[in-house]
């Protein structure tokens, strides 16, 4: 029987031959990602940890990124407990405060590989499909159970195929593409499904693919994947991982999809998700001129070197509007260093940007750039839910780094095509 990507991976990991959508299978993932929430996770199973220990010290990847450096005594204590746990159980893959955002680390350090299965107690774990990994989010309790037992159940998802064709225009990016798709499919349109991207994907870099798969969960998807091609292999080579280190999984040609969508990339315009849902998507042109107070470039969606480069190109030699704050976070320390070496950070700082340490920053509203009632923020993040940036009476607009950068200069929402053409 011809199988989709998700069916093939789940067949491989469960050792079951007859894999059909909705079947429940038991799997042992290659890795389990947890972050600052590790403290709450281990708190649930203290007795069992003392009695039985953990299933494997190589399975967990722990990254401190959400509230870093600690904002309160409570978060500091959580970090401390996590460090003690890491030491006690000799956890191999631990990244303390300052390394970067968990999803960036998982890809950058080569944990996410083609044909692997990764689960994480964070909804954006679905990002690793950028390099052909099957990955999805779970909750804290399930992460606790996985730490102890190493296995869990997954339901075999239905699959959706998205065919991309042609090339993006100048000033239009991967972010605009995924916003357009989510606007069309809706926030629940891919619920429980696996999304596969096919077609003319060769022009999309790993950074672009990461932005796209990262937002799969915003349409309800279980996982989201670009099937491995030369771009993937080239990227993995560049981080020192050769083909002999992984086993690629492809979907079969005749596999069954419950839905198919076609997108002509050359027709996509700069898009923006308006408050308070990610599928409330409009062309930037429709709300151009709206005044904003905060601009934010970063997060696991758009805090990579290519994103900072685009921002620096636009901000080079210019000053941001005196009515806005521009906050920028490189997604990892490696990206930060790279941006320093390329002079990008200097350009950004000169334009008036505030550079924050590699981490989640203001994305989840816990610290570093919380909004006030009535304020509007344009952000490169993946969520604009009410209250997301710490204030339920503020508004968040989601767009590409180019749209955010040009909007920071003008003090109001602006289409980047005007400056880039």
């Amino acid at each position: 029987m011809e199988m989709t990507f998700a069916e093939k991976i789940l067949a491989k990991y469960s050792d079951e031959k007859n894999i059909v959508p909705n079947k429940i299978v038991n799997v042992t993932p290659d890795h389990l990602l947890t972050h600052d929430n590790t403290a709450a996770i281990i708190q649930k199973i203290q007795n069992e940890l003392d009695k039985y220990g953990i299933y494997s010290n190589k399975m967990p990847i722990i990254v401190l990124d959400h509230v870093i450096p600690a904002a309160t005594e409570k978060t500091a204590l959580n970090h401390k407990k996590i460090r003690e746990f890491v030491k006690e159980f000799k956890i191999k893959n631990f990244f303390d405060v300052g390394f970067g955002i968990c999803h960036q680390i998982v890809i950058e350090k080569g944990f996410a590989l083609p044909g692997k299965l990764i689960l994480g107690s964070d909804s954006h774990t679905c990002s690793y499909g950028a390099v052909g990994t099957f990955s999805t989010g779970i909750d804290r309790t399930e992460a606790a159970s996985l730490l102890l037992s190493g296995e869990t159940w997954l339901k075999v998802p239905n699959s959706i195929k998205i065919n991309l064709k042609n090339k993006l225009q100048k000033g239009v990016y991967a972010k605009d593409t995924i916003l357009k798709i989510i606007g069309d499919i809706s926030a629940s349109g891919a619920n429980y499904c696996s999304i596969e991207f096919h077609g003319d994907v060769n022009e999309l870099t790993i950074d672009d693919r990461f932005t796209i798969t990262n937002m799969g969960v915003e349409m309800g998807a279980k996982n989201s994947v670009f099937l491995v091609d030369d771009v993937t292999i080239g990227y993995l080579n560049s981080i020192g991982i050769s083909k002999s280190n992984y086993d690629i999984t492809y979907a079969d040609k005749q596999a069954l999809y419950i839905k198919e969508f076609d997108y002509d990339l050359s027709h996509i315009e700069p898009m923006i998700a308006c408050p308070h849902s990610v599928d409330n998507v409009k062309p930037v042109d429709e709300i151009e001129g709206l005044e904003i107070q905060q601009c934010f470039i970063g997060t696991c969606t758009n805090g990579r070197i290519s994103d900072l480069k685009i921002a620096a190109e636009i901000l080079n030699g210019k000053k941001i509007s005196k009515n806005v704050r521009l906050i920028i976070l490189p997604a990892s320390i490696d990206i930060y260093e790279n941006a320093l070496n390329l002079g990008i950070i200097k350009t950004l700082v000169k334009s008036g940007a505030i550079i924050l340490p590699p981490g989640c920053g203001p994305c989840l509203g816990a610290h570093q750039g919380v909004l006030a009632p009535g304020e509007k923020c344009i952000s490169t993040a993946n969520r604009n839910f009410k209250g997301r940036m710490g204030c339920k009476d503020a508004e968040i607009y989601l767009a590409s780094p180019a749209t955010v950068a040009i909007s920071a200069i003008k003090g109001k929402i602006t289409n980047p095509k005007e400056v880039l053409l």
Partner: protein
Amino acid sequence: MKIWRYGDNVNTDMLFPGKYTYSCSTADEIIPHLLEDLDSSFSKDVKKGDIIIAGKNFGCGSSREQPVIGLKAVGIKAIIAESFARIFYRASINQGLVLIESPDFVKAFSGNDSIELNLIKGIIKINKKNFSFPKLPKEITEIQNSGGLLEYTRIKLKKKNK
């Protein structure tokens, strides 16, 4: 019993704001902030046995189990929605919070109807009309019957280490 009625795409930030995720983890810490940005009367007025009825994609957004722990702790008997987001769905199985996916029921419910819920038979009644909902697969009922995922794992570990 009160019925709390909400619309589509109720996300985890509305159910429990992200700013509290690293300061609240026990039921007592969670309850005062339940649905804070969605319905400020909820945490004050909710009673044991109440039911939530909602539209599509309930619980979308972050992996955040605090709302599940909180809703279970205040005694929500069930959440009936047209559909649920998958991490929220799994979290509810793991904590033993009852979720019922029944688009037909949600569409038929007018707001003032009296309803009866029979979890064992898998039936919800509005006035005299019955709506049945499918039973969960046996792998999942096993987790629920053990009292949630952690209990289930504890039992498994005990057996294995005998």
